[in-house]
């Protein structure tokens, strides 16, 4: 189990990251990552929904007929989204207003549907919950990094308005990177999100290929260095 758990965690956070590799859930990802607080808000909401839906789908996987599984998944996801929406209205109302339509739209987030169909309906409850958590965290991490990039470039601040999510004490978390920054509207607008997302995917691919190279370099040494003798030509 522990090797499995490790693989599930690694898949969710890196190898099969919903945002960087599966490229799912791009619509909310590109639309609301204008600042870190928005990104955390949407990331946490998505993670909670993913956890709940993976748990429920996996618990009921033996009773769900194959032919109508997708409508059933959608209903399960929709009920969790409604719950999250009500919770956000209760505890983070201002952020709820800022995120607007993208909270109800979590229902249509393919990453969540994808995990329900590809993982939760075939695996045990424990593994599904872990998968939901790791996929959610992977998604949130990308959201936060992209949000930080766009906030720093677009507005010249970091962690502004955190009080919307973490209470009045968080108001002082705001870091002003550049005083008197004029703002770079492009980074705040959706095109900036596309470019930023492309750069993040490129960065992941670069890191992956470097790691692969290092692995390749280490391999021959462990093989004992078998030398081939050229016998033809």
């Amino acid at each position, binding site marked *: 189990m522990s090797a499995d758990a490790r693989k599930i965690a690694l898949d969710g956070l890196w190898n099969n990251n919903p945002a960087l590799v599966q490229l799912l859930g791009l619509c909310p990802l590109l639309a609301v990552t204008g600042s870190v607080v928005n990104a955390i808000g949407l990331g946490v909401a998505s993670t909670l929904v993913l956890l709940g839906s993976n748990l429920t789908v996996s618990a009921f996987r033996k009773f769900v007929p194959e032919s109508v599984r997708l409508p059933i998944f959608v209903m399960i996801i929709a009920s969790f989204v409604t719950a999250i929406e009500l919770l956000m209205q209760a505890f983070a109302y201002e952020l709820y207003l800022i995120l607007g339509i993208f909270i109800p739209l979590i229902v249509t987030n393919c990453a969540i549907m994808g995990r329900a169909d590809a993982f939760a309906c075939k695996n045990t409850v424990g593994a599904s919950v872990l998968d939901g958590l790791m996929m959610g965290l992977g998604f949130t991490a990308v959201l936060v990094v992209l949000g930080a990039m766009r906030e720093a470039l677009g507005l010249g601040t970091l962690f502004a308005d955190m009080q919307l999510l973490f209470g009045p004490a968080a108001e002082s978390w705001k870091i002003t990177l550049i005083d008197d920054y*004029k703002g*770079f*509207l*492009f980074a705040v*607008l959706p*095109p900036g999100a596309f*470019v930023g997302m*492309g750069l993040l995917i490129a960065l992941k691919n670069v890191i992956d290929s470097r790691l692969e190279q290092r692995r390749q370099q280490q391999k021959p040494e462990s093989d004992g260095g078998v030398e081939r003798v050229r016998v033809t030509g």
Partner: protein
Amino acid sequence: MALIRTSSPHLHKVSRTSDVMRLVLLATLPGLLAMTFFFGWGTLINVIWASLLALGFEAAIIKLRNRPVRYYLTDYSALVTALLLGLALPPFAPWWLTLVGVFVAIVIAKHLYGGLGQNPFNPAMVAYALLLVSFPVDMTRWTLPTVMVDGGFPGLFETLGIIFGGIDATQIDSYTGATPLDALRHRGGLTTEEAWRAVPVLADGVGAWHAVSAAYFMGGIFLLYRKVFTWHGPLSMLISLTVISTLFFAVEPDAYGDPFFHLTTGATMLGAFFIVTDPVTAATSNRGKVIYGACIGLLIYVIRTWGGYPDAVAFAVLLMNLAAPFIDQYTQPRTYGHQKARRGMKGDA
């Protein structure tokens, strides 16, 4: 008599990228001189600053991509991009505006898409559009022609101070103002004819724009003469712009600018001869170039007249860059010796 056996193509002279780019650089000289003469030292400084930045960014990104730096730097394509962007920016654009623009043009619009020949969008126009959207205040603060400023128009060192030292907001207003295109858009209920008499930049200043356009036109004709590009793109763009502006001007002369005005102000001539003719991002076949150019002319008029921004060349070109592969698909020339495929019943035979 020497009989030398060579294989096709039987070209008289090898035309390298660097030769073409050098000709383009040469052809922008009249425009650059005219801009400097009529709008002060700003444009010249912008162009030099942009060129330095472009060479720097180009060298850095080529190094990053593990390509031979010297080989790619000496094809002059980065310089052409920088020059076009420098000419398009307002003469008193602050240094960081040019920096952001050149970075976007060279690194994002050109090399992230695969470098020269692979970029779907004209790098200079991508940068211009991005700057216009991001920094509308700095990008629309155009300089008044020197003839309209009494006395204290900034000299060379003063201009350097403005560009690199920051803009003194109280001073800058005395030598910047609306462009003719802008003035005609926001004329506060005047008819076109009244605006021509009442608005100073239209009454006294418009000659500067005419002269700059004429200079670009000369450069364009030179390139046409040297066969750097064909007439299809520029001519069809100018004709379509003329036709549509004549149409609207004829119906309601009080509300619209006249065709000559549209042809000789703003970036029309710069666009027609230096942007529309970009061999990479434009349509390829001659028929395709005609459609491409005509659509750009049409879009320029539409965006200028009913859009949100005063000039429209960058947006029109970018939109048509997007459509260029589609145009190419449907205008592929028939190969020699083949007939056009007959469709329908007759095609069966």
